[in-house]
């Protein structure tokens, strides 16, 4: 795909059909059990289910009562139980003697351009435990999207999981003897990326509005609970955050510094529209009330909610801490004053600011510096254990395994474990063998990659965050997200040519496959619609950056992610909680 000329980005395909498919299949499954039944739902499926089928649909199909899986059924309830669970060992322990049907619900459209698989555990399961169980659902998700919106003409990707998912998907397609041939596609390209290709971006503090809201309030399944401090009342309000929200859709991708200005401008406009009432006669007033008032009120309500959210964020973030953290982060990204940043982190730990934040900064230091020098590695960890508790010994072990917090290797010599692993990698399954150990030897090479790709923009004067020049705006102009840069480069070059050095530094596993059977018509809009697949989660900052890129280059990015993530979620996934 070439980014030729500036064109308007195409409209995204309609993903509502995914919801309808999931709903129909659920209804079908429920109808397999005629008569009254109680539905037991696993806790983390509650929100997704709510987005697919509301209570009245469930009631229509004889669902009597709803329970969480962990709770015991009330005595005298229906004599049929229906369980809706993920295939996990721990939940299956609650359930005995059942017949199983698969609800092949892989994809939840969160917004017009975001589809989530709602698999937050993917990150830990795959990247830490080397568990391949979710690769199959990913391949099936691709198959479904390909059948509905494809055929995808071109697939790019990087990362071992990306490669495996892509191969499995191709196998599935082959087995099912594609019927989709000759159809005009709605999505032309697909790009798969493993989260471990770019940890740095995910570890940064988010400063675009949507990212900040996620970091501060945690967006769950596309909606957020604004607490009393935001609503300035005594209750929480659940707000759906998507393109339907007229206010939110205008600020979600903006750098936080410009959001306040926008909101106050907006409220002035709104006020002006209200004020028009003054000079109206009766008829005009009638029209105003019947036509505009409702919309204005709705907008007003949303506006005050977002202003409340902004204030709450400001309160939390404008403390010195936040400014200094951002400063330290930028130093880490740019690679200067490492000693100072290290002391900053140390102080952060010593003062018990926040276990997650401390851990995040340590990881960011490690990953940007290719590991900590041995002295710091020991001392920071010791400090951390003293501050936040000894159980984090296990957390550190996890972080080391996944490659997020490592010690700078003295030389290039293979460790005993590595040579053992490489010995095992001999048979046909070699390509698919997990390498949880590999990360031990894996270097992030961030500094070198950053230089190669120019991730740190050279700015003369202030970076105008209101009129961004590049994707760096999502991090205050300090850093172009690596993941998005790779996607931009590969799409621009229609492959990995010229990126050989970067690929080497990223530990390879890149691919670029054209499906020769798919007609490649450059006039089709689908050529400018790209499905980006993040295996292990993607952040709202990355989404904002690619939305920006899409607008610049006249193309549309669709996001398929195993889950929406951010630094805190990633750290939490690594933390070994007390049993």
């Amino acid at each position: 795909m070439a980014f030729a000329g500036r064109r308007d980005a195409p409209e995204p395909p309609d993903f509502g059909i995914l919801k309808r498919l999931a709903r129909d299949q659920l209804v079908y499954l429920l109808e397999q059990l005629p008569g009254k039944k109680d539905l037991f739902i696993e806790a983390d499926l509650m929100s997704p289910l709510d987005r697919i089928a509301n209570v009245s649909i469930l009631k229509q199909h004889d669902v009597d009562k709803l329970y969480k899986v962990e709770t015991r059924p009330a005595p005298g309830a229906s004599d049929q139980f229906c369980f809706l669970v993920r295939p996990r060992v721990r939940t299956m322990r609650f359930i005995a003697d059942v017949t199983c049907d698969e609800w092949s619900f892989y994809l939840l459209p969160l917004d017009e351009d975001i589809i989530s698989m709602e698999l937050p555990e993917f990150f830990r399961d795959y990247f830490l435990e080397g568990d391949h169980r979710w690769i199959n659902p990913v391949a099936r998700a691709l198959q479904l999207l390909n059948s509905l919106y494809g055929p995808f003409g071109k697939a790019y990707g990087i990362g071992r999981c990306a490669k495996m998912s892509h191969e499995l998907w191709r196998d599935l397609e082959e087995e099912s003897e594609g019927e989709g041939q000759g159809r005009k596609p709605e999505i032309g390209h697909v790009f798969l990326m493993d989260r471990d290709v770019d940890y740095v971006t995910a570890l940064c503090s988010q400063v675009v509005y949507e990212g900040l809201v996620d970091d501060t309030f945690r967006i769950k399944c596309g909606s957020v609970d604004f607490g009393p401090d935001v609503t300035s009342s005594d209750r929480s309000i659940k707000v759906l955050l998507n393109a339907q929200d007229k206010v939110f859709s205008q600020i979600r991708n903006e750098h936080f510094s410009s959001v306040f200005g926008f909101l106050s401008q907006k409220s002035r406009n709104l006020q002006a529209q209200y004020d028009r009432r003054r000079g109206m006669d009766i008829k005009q007033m009638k029209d105003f009330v019947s036509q505009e008032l409702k919309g204005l009120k709705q907008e007003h309500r949303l506006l005050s909610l977002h202003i409340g959210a902004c204030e709450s964020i400001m309160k939390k973030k404008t403390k010195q801490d936040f400014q200094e953290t951002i400063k330290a982060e930028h130093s880490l990204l740019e690679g200067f004053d490492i000693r100072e940043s290290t002391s900053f982190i140390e102080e952060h730990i010593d003062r018990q600011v926040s276990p997650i934040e401390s851990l995040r900064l340590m990881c960011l230091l490690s990953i940007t510096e290719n590991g900590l020098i041995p002295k710091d590695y020991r001392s920071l960890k010791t400090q951390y254990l003293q501050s936040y508790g000894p159980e984090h010994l296990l957390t550190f072990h996890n972080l080391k395994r996944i490659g997020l917090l490592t010690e700078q290797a003295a030389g290039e010599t293979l460790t005993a474990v590595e040579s053992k692993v490489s010995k095992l990698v001999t048979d046909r399954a070699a390509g698919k063998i997990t390498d949880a150990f590999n990360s031990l030897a894996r270097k992030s090479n961030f500094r070198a990659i950053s230089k190669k790709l120019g991730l740190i923009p050279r700015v003369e004067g202030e970076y105008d965050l209101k009129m961004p020049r590049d994707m760096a705006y999502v991090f205050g102009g300090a850093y172009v997200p690596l993941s998005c840069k790779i996607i931009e480069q590969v799409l621009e070059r229609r492959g990995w040519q010229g990126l050989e050095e970067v690929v080497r530094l990223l530990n390879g596993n890149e691919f670029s496959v054209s499906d020769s059977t798919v007609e490649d018509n450059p006039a089709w809009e689908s050529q400018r619609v790209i499905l980006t697949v993040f295996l292990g989660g993607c952040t709202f900052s990355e989404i904002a950056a690619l939305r920006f890129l899409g607008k610049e280059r006249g193309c549309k990015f669709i996001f398929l992610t195993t889950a929406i993530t951010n630094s805190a979620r990633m750290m939490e996934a690594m933390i070994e909680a007390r049993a």
Partner: protein
Amino acid sequence: MDCYTANWYPLGEEAFYRKLELYSMEWGLREDLRDCVVAAAPYGGPIALLRNSRRDKAPSSRPLLEIYSASGLLLASVPWKSGRLVQLGWTAGEDLLCIQEDGTVLVYNLFCEFKRHFSMGNEVLQNHVLEAQVFHTEFGTGVAILTGAFRFSLATNIDDLKLRRLPEVPGLQQPPGCWAVLSQDRVTVVLLAVGPELFLLDNTSCSSVTPPGLSPSAGPFLHMAVSFNHRLLALFCDSGYIWMGLATLKEKFCEFNSTVRSPPKQMVWCTRPRSRQRAVVVAWERQLMVVGNSSECIRFVLDEDSHLVPELDGVRILSRTSHEFLHEIPEASQEIFRIASMAPGALLLEAQKEYEKESQKADEYLREIREQQLLPEAVGQCIEAAGYEHEPHTQKSLLRAASFGKCFLDKFPPESFVRMCQDLRVLNAIRDYQIGIPLTFTQYKQLTIEVLLDRLVLRRLYPLAIRICEFLRLPEIQGVSRILAHWACSKVQQKDKSDEEVAQAINQKLGDTPGISYSEIATRAYDCGRAELAIKLLEYEPRSGEQVPLLLKMKRSKLALGKAIESGDTDLVYTVVLHLKNELNRGTFFMTLQNQPVALSLYRQFCRHQERDTLKDLYNQDDNHQELGNFHVHSSYSEKRIEGRVGALQNALDEFNKARNDFAAKATEEQIKLLRLQRHLQEDFDKPYLDLSLHDTVSTLILDGHYKRAEQLYREFKIPDKRYWWLKISALATRGDWEEMEKFSKSKKSPIGYLPFVEVAVKHHNRYEARKYAPRVPPEQRVKAFVLVGDLEQAAEAAMEHKSEAEMNLVLSRCSPGTDGALAEKLTRARAQLLKK
């Protein structure tokens, strides 16, 4: 053609029957058929013979079981070594059932290869089989037995064997005169005759029944016949009287008096689907009688001993030298061929013949049909009639007539003509002497092409089957692929070829034809005891997942594991792993997993939730001391008591030492030390300290005013100065012990500077205290400190001293226009001056 109707025999006003020769049999039978047990499968199926079984009981001569095609070609033979045979019969799938006297039923395929056996139950075993019948219903093929105790046992489907013993017939002291199996409303019942009485035996009861309109002088029943579709019943009585009616005994069609008083050898129905004519064929030693709704009957003399085979649309008659088919002439054929027929089809046939002779009569005939506007009917009749003809010559002339007639029609849909041509080609091909399946068109349509292909495959006539598929353009998956797969399945049974040869031959022919499952073929190879071949064949299976079940069955579990992993289906991997777990001893199981990281990590996940102790064993096996250490650390947290926790951590410490993880070892050691200390603290202060980090422990001590103990921990655990100072001043500030804080600030030079003192004090809203420390803050942070304590004057002074624009801005931003106007002005001026330079 003039003598076409020479072999037509009328029965009553409307019906004609004809007997035509299918094959002249060259099976070289030396015995008479009456000396053999004979069974011929319906739908032109094979014929099974067991020679000299009954009479010659000399043990020296083993009887021979032979199977012939319908044309008399020997398919296979085998000496009969089992027990005394009572009855032979064929299943719907063309397997031969051999019912022995002891109630054992042996199942052979049509190449005399033994497949399996089953028993009809203990009662049959004890009392022996007196008589047996094989019957077909919608449930499949069934077997009914009359035992020596005059009780009936039956199974309606031998593939899903459920034995039923029917209730006793009251007062039955001798074998019934005759009996038959009826299928009514999906229930299988037995109808039996005891002298002049009829009884119906169902699952639970025995009831006496009487056929309506039975002649009072009929006498005892000697024979009964049930039609192919179980709807019609015929009864033959002692007096030669024949009753014909519904099998439900609710209606009589007709009766006939044969005047023959000897019991017939065989009696079978001869009808056609959808025909109004119903007739019964009765065979004695030397004569054959076709009787129906007419006072007359058709008689044939039998030169030889014959055997009747009922078919869907007629009766086959087997003898030593010939194989004939007796059937009612279908309407279309009657219309066309009846002497002096003026039916449109007949005229069309004539017209075409005249046309060939280049006679103008052709036009006359044609005009006659067209005038009546019956040409479409004429064409249709000719096409239909072609289907009923056995002779290709006649078929051709009828089809030629149809084709000729079609020329004069604008919009005659071609499908029926084309399909009939295709069907006849297929039928003629399989009726060939070498193939020997004499299917009629009606039977063929009932059987369907799929079943016909199956039957060709059963006879191993693969090339013919494939040619038919190609000729009929059947989709590959239903047609050619399926046949190739069957071929491959039979190929693997060829014991004379090496595994390598067979595998290659199969792959060469099959390639990657869609719909071929190599794993199915491999399964067959394995079932034939060719494990090596099975593995070679599995190599060709592109879908790794498909290979797994067979590999497991073959106990190649490790290979199965590899394939499951390759398939990317983790459920499959779990299946194999759990299989391995049961199959192998623990050590080998673990070793196997060690070589398969994907499976290992899945199993670990399983253990983590399900069997934590197994997890430990896994790590032990691998001498993975690091993970063992982690394991113990993890379990320490589930210990409620300090002693237990220390114990677990001690284990962890040992493992970390073995793993040479100094850091973890040291950290664990420290934690043990801390735990012991916390125990003392709990005892001393009666307050929970367990689960607190070192930081929190010290912090709590300070908050509670135990400064000495805190100091002690600080030294004992070598807490870095910076941390200790941070910790102490924030705890003191929280506690509000400003005096102690001041004392502490003076104890030595602060390693964290004095800004934190200011910050902490301000945080606790004590500006007064904060001000004390502001002057001690080093110059570069002083502005910030003064701003914090709210001393803007001093802040401004320091900022101006530093000539720092940023600092001036900071102070300015805090100036409120009302109270600090002067100061702000001063600052603004200073800033302007600074910028000028």
